[in-house]
């Protein structure tokens, strides 16, 4: 089994928050407005609640097998073959998240900042940094996540604060959007926006006990829900529902609109700096999770030789879509719609099967 370091609740929370909240900077806030209109901010709270419910199930599963990570739990409760299939599907989901998000990020970079650079260079540099992280270990990523979270959050809140000159309360009305039923349904379906909390299950061995996992998971879900909801409220306040549907990246356009006097204008490259750093850490942690699941699946001792081939796979996954529209409408939507299955429903199924078959892990000796 590969050796992974240990990290505490604080760093786990920072890691999961970066992983989940990075989505606020992508195309999803604008895209999802087509279905739900002005109600983005409480739709995401519904998603958060659903995710908390599912995480409670995951936590129960982890509590049943203390000290083991999700691959071992799948093996123990579902048997070797089905467990292997489940873990493999989980790994494929993470890998596709990496690939599709890298592609989305690259397309946005090409639209706004680096139009002439070939996309393979941008994707390649990103995945290269992620593979360096695999070589250096999990503790490194957790520590850098903690270091980077403070300035990122500060920058985020400053952007929201300074764009408050554009906020108009009436943009939130009509308050029910296209209908409450659509909002609730989309909310439950899109709980997959919070599915990165499953990385806590993959690294359960590094977290020093299930009480830590519980704290880390719930605190990070609550905080991410707050951060995403705050962002969506500000986006809705600044643009009306008709405008926001047109825009590719709402957060970037919001930053472009900051204008205080003749000097403080056009400050969006600073936003770029922030976003690139959080995206890099996001891709690193998801990539590391993929490599880690792979090593745990095949019981490898060392993760390092797996990194380079997995990087090649990730880059290939990123180059599959032909153009940006298909990335958005087919792949991203696909992940958001079906992500629930691999990340939330599969552990729930494993829990039910484990209860039925009365499988339990050995309790940890008092050390």
């Amino acid at each position: 089994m590969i050796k992974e370091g240990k990290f505490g609740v604080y760093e786990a929370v920072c890691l999961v928050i970066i992983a989940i909240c990075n989505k606020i900077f992508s195309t999803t806030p604008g895209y999802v407005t087509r279905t739900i209109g002005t109600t983005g901010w409480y739709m995401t709270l519904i998603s958060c609640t659903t995710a908390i419910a599912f995480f409670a199930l995951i936590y129960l599963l982890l509590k049943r097998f203390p000290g083991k990570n999700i691959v071992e739990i799948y093996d123990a409760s579902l048997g070797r073959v089905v467990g292997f299939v489940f873990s493999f599907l989980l790994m494929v989901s993470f890998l596709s998240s990496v690939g599709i998000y890298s592609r989305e990020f690259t397309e946005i970079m090409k639209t706004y900042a680096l139009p002439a650079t070939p996309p393979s260079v941008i994707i390649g540099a990103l995945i290269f940094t992620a593979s360096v992280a695999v070589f250096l270990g999990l503790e490194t990523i957790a520590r850098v996540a903690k270091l980077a979270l403070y300035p990122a959050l500060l920058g985020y809140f400053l952007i929201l604060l300074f764009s408050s000159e554009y906020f108009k309360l009436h943009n939130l009305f009509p308050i029910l959007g296209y209908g409450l039923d659509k909002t609730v349904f989309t909310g439950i379906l899109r709980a997959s926006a919070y599915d990165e909390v499953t990385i806590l299950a993959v690294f359960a061995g590094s977290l020093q006990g299930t009480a830590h996992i519980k704290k880390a998971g719930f605190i990070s879900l609550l905080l991410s829900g707050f951060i995403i909801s705050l962002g969506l409220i500000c986006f809705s306040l600044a643009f009306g529902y008709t405008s926001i549907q047109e825009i590719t990246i709402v957060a970037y356009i919001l930053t472009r609109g900051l204008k205080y006097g003749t000097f403080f204008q056009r400050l969006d490259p600073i936003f770029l700096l922030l976003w690139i750093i959080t995206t890099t850490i996001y891709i690193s942690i998801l990539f590391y999770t993929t490599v880690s699941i792979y090593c745990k699946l095949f019981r490898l001792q060392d993760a390092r030789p797996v990194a380079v081939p997995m990087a090649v796979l990730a880059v290939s996954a990123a180059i599959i879509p032909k153009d940006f529209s298909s990335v958005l409408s087919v792949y991203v939507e696909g992940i958001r719609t079906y992500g629930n299955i691999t990340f939330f429903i599969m552990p729930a199924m494993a829990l039910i099967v484990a209860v039925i078959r009365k499988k339990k892990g050995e309790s940890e000796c008092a050390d």
Partner: protein
Amino acid sequence: MPGFLKTISDMLTYKEPKNKERGFELLEDEAQSAPKQSNAQRQDSSGQQNSTQNQRGKSSRNPLTVEEWNGGRKAENTEDVCQAPNNTNIMSTKLCENLEAIKQKFLMPKNRDIIVREFRIGRKVKAFMVYIDGMMDKQTLNLSILPQLMSRDVFEELGEECPVDYLMENILAVHDVRKTNKYSDTVMQILNGLSALFVEGCGECIIIETRGYEKRNVDTPKTETVVKGSQEGFTENLRTNVALIRRIIKNENLVTEMLSVGNTNHSNCAIMYLEGITNPKVIQEVKKRLERIDTDFVLGDGMIEQFIEDNSFMLFPQIASTERPDRTASFIMEGRVVIIAEGTPFALSAPVTFFGLFHTSEDTFVRWPGGTFLRLIRIFGLFCATFLPGLYVALTLYHIEMIPTELLISIAKAKELVPFPTLLEVLIMEIAFELIREGGIRVPSVIGQTLGIVGALILGQAAVTAGLVSPLLVIVVSITGLGSFAIPNYTLAIAIRIERFLFIFAGAVLGFYGISLMAVLLSYSACSMKSFGVPYFVPVAPKTKVNPDIILRYPIWTQKERPDALNTPDRKRQGDNPKLWISEDNPDETDKGGNT
């Protein structure tokens, strides 16, 4: 050709990592219950060092030349009884044998430094003293040793037993005498400047402390000047340095262990720590690494640092080096281990964290608003020194929207005359600046001052007028240089100067994207570092107890505990109410000021 293919296949195939351990880790739960070092072990440690040294000393002894071997054999043939005992470290009781042994070991008469003074003690007993001319204090020899030994009434009773003990207890009026029966020990002590007294009929010799060589006076520190603080700095002499620290920490638990590093030059090295406050595992690790240095010669602490640090390939330093005794004392008080080597006026301290490299003693002597302000300026200097040229390149090449329009037009106008692309311009200016810095160290100080200021200004102005660089770039490069001067630790400053070029290239290739990626890569490499088991970015990442002294310096009465990451056995530094005078003066205002 086959070598080429083999190399490629070597690079592509997987090899098991040789180092199975994860390196030295300082873990929490074992700190408190680690046993203290026993007294016997402590006192014996110096003896142990010598015995391990013996093995090395013997193995690296110069082989005898043929003439010397023949000369020895000739002496054998003429039945002269005085020959050096073969292959043994223990002294013989015969004086002439000891003399021969000493002469062989020091390669006399070729070696003119060693003086052998033969005389009779009390006009009766034959004896000789060995010492190195220039390293001993002639006064001590001439006034305190030779007169006492040569006076007529030394021996009331002359017995057959060896008079060494009698001499040590009654005759020798010197402050430090020891006896030993090993040649290797004697040789080391003589090389260090002490004198050895051999007496006829004794299998032991007396080592007398007579060190007195030319050394530099205690002077102001050259590299770390402060405004408000002590103006004493270390010198090259080990004893003086240790004494400077002892003057600040007057505690009986302050331990100085002596080691010898360097197989051939046997340089002395002292480890200082506070017993009971420093984590014993750190001490063991430091000693282990120092003892295992297997090299020819070690000139000073710079080379020691490179041998014992954790990651040689990272740019950041993992051991702090300082020239000031007050800073060294504060390191010891926090629970770190200090290593002082002979030959350089610097002391090393381990373990160190990234934020610790930004502290100077000025922050502690100035009140807390001043301390915080100074630290913030330094951090700003760090950012300028690292990022500013890279940001300039990225801004002007990729993100011109961020520049205000009027500034942009004036930059564009100025750039009309410049024939170079921006990247080349920046590189020229940066390299020229580095040249000025490096050359300025060696210019004789009479011209040095004027050359620095005037030279830089005129050079910059001339370059602008000649149309080589644009004026904004001169400002950028000067601010970068000033920023790197603001970093207190010299090694870190050099590392930052190197990193600056990485950022320039990253910014030139991919703009802000490249700079962000490079910043993340550097953070990855920095966060994966450990310095003697303590992660480099503690207490920010990973999180330990709040330390009120990282960047912002809180008032001094809030610093109640030692840094958490060092896992010291004794955490408390201050009592609960360090400002006890407030509550004593005003008994009904106990909550003001003291409790925070």
